[in-house]
């Protein structure tokens, strides 16, 4: 596509310069963190090209806090949340998209309430509920409030509605029950939307902080984000080289996944946003 309003000459050069300046500014904090983490402490703010590279900061960080356990916890958390979300959201979206039942519109409106009032702001009451249920300080408690995701229900309902009724009916004539139709017709057709939703969900829960901070209280249940906070605000003294190394460790898996699957990530976030 040739763009009619593509710029030329000086304007073009200025715009390219501006875009690059902004791009470099945007990456600067990350580059800065990488510099500090991979160099000995005495070079953490001295930018000389001859500074020796080292992995020592990562080793120290890894040894100073149970990061391995935190990684396992976070992995368990995002896997559990995503698995539960996929099942619950699929069933609910199918109900809203293809079944007639009394109260459907009211119930759908009640689901959409969660788009505005996310579990993130209901921390006080949800903490009480978890205490009552005896689930405090468990990984399940971190994930439970997010499992029925209004966002996911909305997204999949829109997708299921675009599936031609003829496919649905053909499968029924073949003798499929409602669940078999869902599994054989709707789910395969919605695969790109599932991928989009999964990426958004995983990055959200990998990064989530305030609720896990409140509800967890031990190494056995803390996710990485909370573990990092406990580590960096601890009393080991402020050694920025080690803290930035720990910070990069926390962000590394998502960052690597993003760099490898850039296109899918960007398209997924895009797809998830278009309604």
């Amino acid at each position: 596509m040739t763009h009619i309003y593509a710029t030329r000459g000086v304007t073009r050069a200025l715009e390219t310069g501006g875009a690059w300046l902004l791009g470099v500014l945007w990456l600067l904090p990350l580059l800065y963190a990488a510099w500090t983490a991979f160099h000995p402490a005495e070079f953490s703010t001295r930018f000389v090209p001859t500074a020796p590279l080292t992995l020592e900061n990562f080793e120290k960080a890894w040894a100073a806090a149970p990061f391995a356990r935190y990684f396992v916890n976070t992995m368990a958390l995002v896997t559990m949340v995503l698995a539960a979300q996929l099942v619950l959201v699929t069933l609910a979206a199918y109900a809203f998209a293809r079944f007639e039942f009394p109260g459907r519109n009211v119930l759908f409106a009640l689901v959409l309430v969660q788009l505005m009032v996310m579990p993130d702001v209901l921390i006080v009451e949800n903490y009480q509920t978890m205490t009552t249920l005896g689930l405090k300080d468990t990984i399940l408690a971190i994930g439970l409030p997010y499992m029925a995701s209004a966002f996911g229900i909305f997204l999949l309902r829109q997708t299921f509605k675009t599936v031609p009724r003829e496919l649905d009916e053909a499968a029924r004539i073949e003798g499929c029950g409602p669940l078999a139709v869902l599994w054989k017709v709707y789910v395969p057709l919605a695969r790109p939307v599932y991928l989009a939703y999964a990426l958004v969900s995983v990055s959200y829960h990998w990064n989530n902080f305030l609720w896990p901070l409140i509800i967890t209280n031990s190494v056995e249940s803390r996710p990485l984000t909370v573990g990092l906070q406990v580590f960096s605000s601890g009393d080991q003294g402020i050694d920025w080289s080690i803290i930035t190394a720990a910070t990069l460790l926390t962000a590394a898996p998502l960052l690597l996944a993003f760099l490898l699957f850039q296109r899918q990530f960007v398209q997924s976030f895009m797809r998830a946003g278009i309604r």
Partner: protein
Amino acid sequence: MTRTTQWFYGWLLLLPAAALLALFTHYPVVATLWHSFLSTPKGSRPAVWVGLDNYRQLAEDPIFWQALVNNLWFALGTIPASIALALLMAVWVNGRLAGRGFLRLAYFTPTVLPMIAVANIWLFFYTPEYGLLEKALAVFGAGTHNWLGSKNTALACLMVVTVWKEAGFFMIFYLAALQSMSPYLAEAAAIEGASRGHFFRRVTFPLLMPTTLFVLVNAVINAFRLVDHVVVMTRGGPDNATALLLYYIYAIGFRFWDSAYAAALTMVLLALLAAAALAQFWFLERKVHYQ
């Protein structure tokens, strides 16, 4: 399928999600309202009905008012800036600039990083004397300044982090909208002799209105929902200069363990979010008719 089987299946499919939503979204909203009229149970003393006492306390609490004002400034400082930057970024990476693949990557990267991790990096960035900001300013002969420790600059520092984190995320939606726009529009406008700026103001920007609204709603929710960086960088200080509403709720609920007062504060936050939702519907009805 008969009508009753339809009903049966519909309800059954919905049941698991509905139960969890009711337990962790609808019940807490109602319970927050109820608990905001009770006292905080302490030890053997159960909660008792205190009517509007918690709200009276709230009206007389200078820190609450400060947190509310802070949050409004925070919203005002982050929302327009991140949306404007997002639009600029999207226009740039949608054009044919050299290295736009790299630029897209650079702009979007902060989105996938945990807020808590980037807050740590920025904390280091802002460190007095030692941090990169101070080092860069020292080159220009500027004196040292405690950026996060000073009442005048702490909130602005948090705003910068938020804009940096969000702009690339919002860019994606503008980019999607720009890419779905018909190239014939630009051709027609060029034939009519419209300048580039004129075309953007009169055609592109109005067509992006639904996207802008979507982004705006997200930005408003985030301005009241995201306080991770406050916990890491300032803990609401210095002197409550960076206390945002949700952070104050967290401090009251989980540092002072005053759950009744925290419930009253949560009601204020819920009211703000409800107002945002209503404004969105009102606006959708009236202003955005491009789909």
